[in-house]
């Protein structure tokens, strides 16, 4: 509960910067509510003080007041909608940026543990749900409470007994509204789930249309769609039944209220206790009385959804960044590139400790010294720990035990971002961002000149395909570089690294084959990349392995053997066995 208070206070804190606007907004809400309450009362007054009093001037003035109230209501509603919208959207914007900033501070380990979809929906869907609570919720609560209090006050002021009779239908209305909310929340959620299932199925059969056609399995999908379609129809039908009961029922309650007012009010008039205009006023207020109650019942669902979203967003914001600079971390300046592993052990399982089962360790007790300028090839079968070792050098993770040092200083002693800027990391699949090829090449060094960008592209041989594109280096690559082939993406990723002039290179060699010409270009580009830099290569091809100064063979997270190709063959160990299995 305390936690909930903290969260609500935090939400209110988001509103703080806009308190002037919120002040005006509340004024507008009060003014529009009051001006909406006036017309029925004025209509009653027109009958009593104008018509029945036989006073034409009073009638005219009352109608002028009526028109004035209408005008005020129009203007203040306009202001209210505008200000509520503005504040809600603005807070939403601030919140999105805050969450995004926080997400970017998280370590790579965080992104490994959480699916991308989940992280993204914190910045999109959940914030949208919170917006409902902030803009609609708060205003609905405020405006409707105000209306309700206003109506009740006016009715009581006009006639206490008639007011009590009118309000006697209230409990019924509240109960039906709450029941409706309760049942419909589940029903409406089901309709959303069902339509989402249909959309997902459709999306899948469209993107997999080649496979569907190739195996002639259309009937299977048509059957599945019929099933989903049927489920969707059933789910929607239950909301139809709910709506068909609730809305006519409230209409009946309105009519019953009207009848009661006419009956009891009428007798009061006949007995001379009240005037006929009062009865007309009561009828006019009946609807103004019903709407807020229905909306307030609705609000509860908004509140629950908003709070659920708030919990999720907090779950993210409360997650501290786990890889941070030490307080005395220094800017590395220009690195030399000497890498040292001192008895390093690492597990992806956060709770692992030294006593736990050995197979939970991705790497164990690694001691390794890579001198400046050396190219090291990491070799081993699946799960041997090659990529883990590479990731520790880039400090995407911190080891549980031991230290990784660069130029003799532990990684956490260097400032993270300048350190990474001097490391070139080339993934298996070249990930590109939407934008032009030039923008992607300059990703690591945005200040690079056009000439530098072009020469980086030329250095890896990417100019060959770039020159053939209609827009050349200004070609848009599309989302994730989808417009380029995988080999071309790879080359752009290489050019990006070349331009960043890293001192240390971490390379995960691509395994999937591209066409031969590109393959050769990539091979030459690799040569350029490795030259004169400390490099750790997760190698898959013999040609790359041979090019390395030293081969490190990993097995179950430990270094099994090291040496050159010839040395390892001569040693007749694990590498020699892998090699001979492949040769045959």
């Amino acid at each position: 509960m305390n936690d909930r208070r903290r969260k609500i206070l935090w939400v209110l804190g988001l509103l703080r910067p806009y308190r002037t606007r919120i002040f005006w907004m509340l004024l507008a809400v009060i003014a529009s509510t009051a001006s909406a309450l006036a017309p029925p009362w004025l209509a009653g007054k027109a009958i009593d003080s104008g018509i029945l009093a036989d006073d034409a001037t009073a009638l005219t003035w009352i109608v002028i007041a009526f028109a004035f109230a209408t005008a005020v209501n129009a203007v203040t509603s306009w202001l209210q909608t505008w200000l509520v919208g503005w504040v809600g959207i603005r807070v939403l914007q601030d919140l999105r940026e805050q969450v995004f900033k926080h997400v970017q501070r998280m370590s790579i380990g965080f992104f490994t543990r959480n699916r991308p979809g989940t992280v993204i929906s914190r910045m999109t869907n959940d914030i949208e749900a919170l917006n409902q609570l902030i803009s609609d919720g708060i205003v609905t609560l405020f405006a409707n409470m105000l209306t309700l209090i206003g109506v009740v006050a006016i009715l009581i002021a006009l006639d206490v007994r008639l007011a009590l009779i009118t309000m006697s239908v209230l409990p019924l209305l509240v109960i039906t509204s709450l029941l409706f909310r309760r049942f419909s929340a589940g029903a409406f959620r089901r309709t959303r789930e069902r339509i989402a299932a249909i959309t997902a199925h459709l999306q899948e059969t469209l993107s997999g249309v080649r496979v569907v056609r190739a195996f002639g399995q259309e009937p299977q999908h048509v059957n599945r769609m019929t099933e989903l379609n049927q489920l969707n129809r059933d789910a929607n039908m239950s909301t139809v039944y709910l709506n068909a009961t609730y809305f006519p029922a409230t209409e009946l309650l309105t009519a019953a209220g009207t009848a009661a007012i006419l009956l009891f009010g009428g007798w009061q008039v006949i007995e001379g206790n009240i005037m006929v205009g009062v009865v007309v006023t009561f009828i006019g207020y009946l609807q103004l009385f019903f709407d807020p109650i229905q909306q307030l019942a609705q609000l509860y669902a908004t509140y629950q959804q908003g709070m659920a979203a708030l919990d999720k967003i907090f779950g993210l914001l409360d997650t501290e960044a786990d890889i941070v600079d030490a307080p005395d971390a220094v800017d590395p300046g220009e690195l030399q590139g000497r890498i040292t592993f001192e008895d390093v052990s690492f597990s992806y399982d956060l709770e692992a400790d030294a006593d736990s089962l050995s197979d939970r360790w991705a790497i164990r007790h690694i001691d390794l010294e890579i001198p400046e300028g050396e190219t090291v090839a990491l070799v081993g079968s699946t799960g041997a720990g090659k990529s883990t070792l590479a990731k520790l050098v880039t400090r995407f993770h911190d080891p549980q035990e031991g230290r990784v040092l660069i130029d003799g200083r532990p990684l956490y002693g260097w400032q993270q971002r300048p350190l990474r800027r001097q490391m070139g990391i080339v993934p298996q699949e070249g990930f590109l961002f939407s934008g032009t090829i030039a923008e992607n090449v300059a990703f690591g060094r945005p200040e690079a000149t056009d000439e530098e960008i072009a020469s980086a592209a030329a250095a890896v041989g990417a100019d060959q395909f770039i020159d053939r594109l209609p827009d050349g280096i200004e070609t848009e690559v599309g989302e994730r570089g989808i417009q380029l082939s995988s080999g071309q993406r790879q080359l752009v990723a290489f050019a990006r690294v070349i331009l960043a002039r890293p001192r240390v290179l971490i390379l995960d060699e691509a395994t999937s084959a591209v066409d031969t010409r590109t393959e050769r270009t990539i091979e030459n580009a690799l040569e350029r990349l490795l030259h004169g830099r400390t490099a750790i290569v997760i190698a898959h091809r013999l040609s790359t392995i041979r090019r390395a100064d030293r081969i490190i063979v990993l097995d179950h997270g430990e270094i099994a053997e090291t040496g050159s190709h010839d040395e390892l063959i001569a040693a007749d160990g694990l590498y020699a066995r892998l090699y001979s299995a492949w040769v045959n």
Partner: protein
Amino acid sequence: MPTFRRLLGFVRPHRRELWGSLIFAWAAMGMTVLIPSLIGKAVTAIQDGDGDALLPIAGLIVGAAILRLGLTMVRRIVAGKVSLAVEFDLRQELYGHLQRLELGFFDHQQTGQLMSRATVDLQAIRFFLGYGLIFFSQSLLTVTLAGAVMFWINPWLALIGLAPAPLVVIAALRFTRVSRPAMQEVQQRVAELTAEAEETVTGIRVVKAFSREDHRYERFQAAVTRLFDQSLHSTRIQAFFQPLIGALPQIGTALVLLVGGHQVLAGSLDLGQFTAFYAYMLMLSSPLRTVGMALGMGQRAIAAGNRLFEVLDRDPEIVAPPGAPDLPAGEGRVELEGVGLTYGPDAPPALVDISLDVPPGARLGLVGGSGAGKTSLVALIARLYDPTSGAVRIDGSDLRSVTPDSIRHQVAYVSDDSFLFSDSIGANIAYARPDASPEAIERAATLAQADGFIRELPDGYDTVVGERGLTLSGGQRQRIAIARALLADPRILILDDATSSLDATTEQAIRDALDEVMRDRTTFVIGHRLSTLSLAETILLMDEGRIVDRGTHEELDSRSPAYRSLIVSGAEDDPLFVDDEIEVVR
């Protein structure tokens, strides 16, 4: 209007229900219109001091309301049924039609476009046909009836009170028209913002590797600002129209109070009639708005209908003649006779005059640069496309003379993208034969060298993969795709670059398995790695849609420089070890 007429055609099967629901709606409206005049009668009774008349009038109001409750409930349920039935039919028809359309259609369509037809457009039509028509007629009837009663009571006052009515309709129509695109643009910008967030999250390793968090933040901020601007625009429209639509009928009410009040004072109108007028004015504001909104809905439904019919009117091109037989049993001989293929009127030919006779059990390799026509050639064998000229035959039957389904049950085509459905691995392997036994599935997986890694997954064969499941590596996906093809037990197997992400050892093991499975069956292999091509006995060298050379690998290697330049020459470049690690350094 032809589109509108065709849209109404979707209602035809349910026209009895629709009429029923309309009649109920009108009857309910009759009750609604009755109530204000009863109120007027009650006020007259009160004024006349006739307390005894009040009870029957109140009873009548409650009675009318109860009757209306029953009528409205039935009306809503019937209308809901019709609306949902129309949606159901529309979706079935569209989806069924999409499944009948040939692959070529999808080559020219963006998935997003088709998706929005099947969702947004369909919704617009369904709302209009299911609810819009009823709301429209119901509201129009209310306005007409109430108007008639008001004219009957006092024509002048009715004219004055209803003067703003056309304005309300126009404003509501205009609001529906303007706000819709604005809101859609908001959705569009939300999508852009999501894409921006998605790119950063999926590419976070690159962002961190180059320390470009600030740059991504700026881009995200720009997307947020764009959304902010558009949301404000949409809010502004709402802030303008909603109070306007609310205030316009009030002006009518004010006029009624003024003029009617003076008429009562002058004695030409009695107080009861005056009150009834007032009650009618209160009642009319929402139907007037509905008429305008329903008109807007109708316009949208017609636009959506036009887009939907564009798809529905496109006839499938790959169909069997009526009464066509299934592909007769045979050994798997494939013949191409003078085959040419062009994808579109402006496209260069993909295949030119290809003639080929592949005997049963042969293993044919296809080699060529990109755009040489390899994939086009094998796609013809599964009749994914029809040749523009010439004929393709399997065991003597022209593919155009037999049912496409029977061809595809005999030809298993494994493409390079190895698409998996969001389903268990077992179901993915059994895709072509959903009735396959678990043993058969495991055997196919074993042959494709997939059994080992599948067993190590958390739920084994029940592990859900695909877009909404576990992400597998490229090599793992390829092996599942091959298992899927093997389980189909095809007469002809096509591997289109289907082993590109496998290492040499795995590829070798699959080759051995194929030796056993594909004996006496025909296999086509596309690839450019030596290890892949060693699956084939004969290799065809293709260039610009033609077969330019054929022979064994040794023959081509020795005589064709073009061939040598296409093949990844040194065995050293073949992957030695391939990671099956799901998480690679990215």
